[in-house]
């Protein structure tokens, strides 16, 4: 009797120690999306931007998925922290995400723009709206699956009234447009049982001006990722994935 009581007590203490171990060595990692157009913050309200090369433009929609989010330790090993995240720049509920991650020092972040083929094959109706893969307006068509990126706006010649402007509609999807991103910008620490926030910065001007394949808004104002305009989607995915950075 005494022996079994003793064993129970030891087991209980063991379980308690395990569960408290679980809480240790972990912290909260938050990623906040910050949009930019060059040095200016991205805004959908009352804001016209210029590319400095003859074009004015504005945006009114930016939505995209990232997936397989990993943190890179200083010894170059990687930690998986999130399978998929969804950003909608017009909706504060979807401008950031936070996850539990091992505490410690990291030297970079990796993720992919879009959804991996397994995620892309899922049906939003099978997930709750609160899930990144759940129903999101304008982000899924049965025949093309998920849109990885949805950017819309309008462009005109500098100083133009936009009456004769060009509609910008970049609906980028399909597995061939899945792109990897690897970022580093100095080391950062996720404190034990604490919180670390970083800003994920996306510069839309770079999407259209980044060498070696800048996208001319007038010549390539959009894509639906259909067969006849898939080349623009591929170019856009390449450019978009090169336009991220992070800051603390």
């Amino acid at each position: 009797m005494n022996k079994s009581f003793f064993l129970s007590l030891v087991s209980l203490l063991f379980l308690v120690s395990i569960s408290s171990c679980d809480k240790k060595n972990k912290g909260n990692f938050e990623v906040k999306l910050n949009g930019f157009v060059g040095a200016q913050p991205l805004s959908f309200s009352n804001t016209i931007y210029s590319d400095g090369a003859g074009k004015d433009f504005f945006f009114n929609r930016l939505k995209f998925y990232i997936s397989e989010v990993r943190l890179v330790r200083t010894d170059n090993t990687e930690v998986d922290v999130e399978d998929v995240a969804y950003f909608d720049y017009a909706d504060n509920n979807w401008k950031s995400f936070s996850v539990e991650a091992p505490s410690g020092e990291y030297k970079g972040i990796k993720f992919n723009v879009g959804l991996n083929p397994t995620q892309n094959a899922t049906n939003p109706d099978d997930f709750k709206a609160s899930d990144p893969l759940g129903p999101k307006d304008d982000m899924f068509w049965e025949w093309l699956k998920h849109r990885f990126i949805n950017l819309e706006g309008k462009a005109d010649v500098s100083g133009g009234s936009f009456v004769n402007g060009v509609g910008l509609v970049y609906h980028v999807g399909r597995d061939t447009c899945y792109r990897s991103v690897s970022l580093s910008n100095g080391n950062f620490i996720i404190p034990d049982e604490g919180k670390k926030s970083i800003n994920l910065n996306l510069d839309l001007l770079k999407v259209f001006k980044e060498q070696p394949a800048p996208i001319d808004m007038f010549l390539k104002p959009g894509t639906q990722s259909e067969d006849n305009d898939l080349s623009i989607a591929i170019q856009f995915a390449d450019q978009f994935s090169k336009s991220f950075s992070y800051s603390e």
Partner: protein
Amino acid sequence: MKKLLFLLGSMLVIVFGLQQCKPDSTEIPEPEENYKSTPDTIKRPFNFPPINIPVDNPLSKEGVLLGRMLFYDPLLSIDSTISCASCHKQENAFADGGKAFSTSVFGLTKRNSPPLFNLVWMKDFFWDGRAKTLPQQVEDALIHEQNFNAAMAVSKLEKDSTYVALFKKAFGKPGNITQQKIEKAVSQFMMTLISADSKFDKVMRGQATFTQLEFDGFYNLFMKDTGNVGGFGADCFHCHANSSGASNLTMMDNNFHNNGLDYAANFNDFTDKGLGAITGSFTDNGLFRTPHIRNIEVTGPYMRDGRFSTLEEVVEFYNSGLKLSPTVDPQMKFAHQGGIQYLSAYDKQALVAFMKTLTDTTFLNNPKFSNPFEQ
């Protein structure tokens, strides 16, 4: 002594008798502490998204009935002449059938009354999206369309013993009548207005088949992109279908667009700024909520100002009548040439034929949604 006792006894009997003769009290007892109204539910139609009823306004049979009565009762307007149903008629899928401009004794309504159904899947209300919840929408309509005065409406309802009882049954304790309860009850009724039994739905469920004309209208025109160079579909689906799931049949994108209805020389040249007047952003000027395409056969006249009387006119507008302005939707890829231009007579007939498959006569004739005072 005996006589005195007799007299006293008689008086007691008379007093007791008089007590019994008093008319029934108009006081309706407060609901019991643990009173609960009868929960009501809405059935999720085939291939529609899940229904999220607001936690602060759960449906009850009593709440829906009360809301239905309030919806049809002109008592809520300041001079008791206008009800919600004056501009939202069941035979028009709760649109106004072109009559909103003349029913209001307080003047013309600014815009065409939108139809009311499938509201549980909507995120913004009114053409300009100025309400974000159904109770907000009810409040706005009561104030601006029925010249509603909350205190007066509450006072009128409090004098009506039927309503006093109905409010208590719908909302329990405390059994008073408030503006908030009026809005909640009307919202409850409106949440039950589900339209999902048109021929189109039956085709999607495998219970009916499209004619060739309807088939071409839907699959080869409505749901097909124009492409960047044009030459194939009519590209209606970007706004008039839902792209959030594999088979979301709400047929609305829950979004705002400038569909090229009017020319504007610059951002501030719009006669009706729509969403821009609400958000204060000039890049939103001229944008309006995508209207329902379901039941479109009976929701005319069309566009926010009811300028088109027929579906044929609407189709022709998208084919050849688009006007340029700074905020024309980027999806209107052929606005610069007045529309896609290439729809044949057959294409136009096909689009109209398809649109007519969206008429839900079950909904239009559902006795659960009709005027309860005429039954």
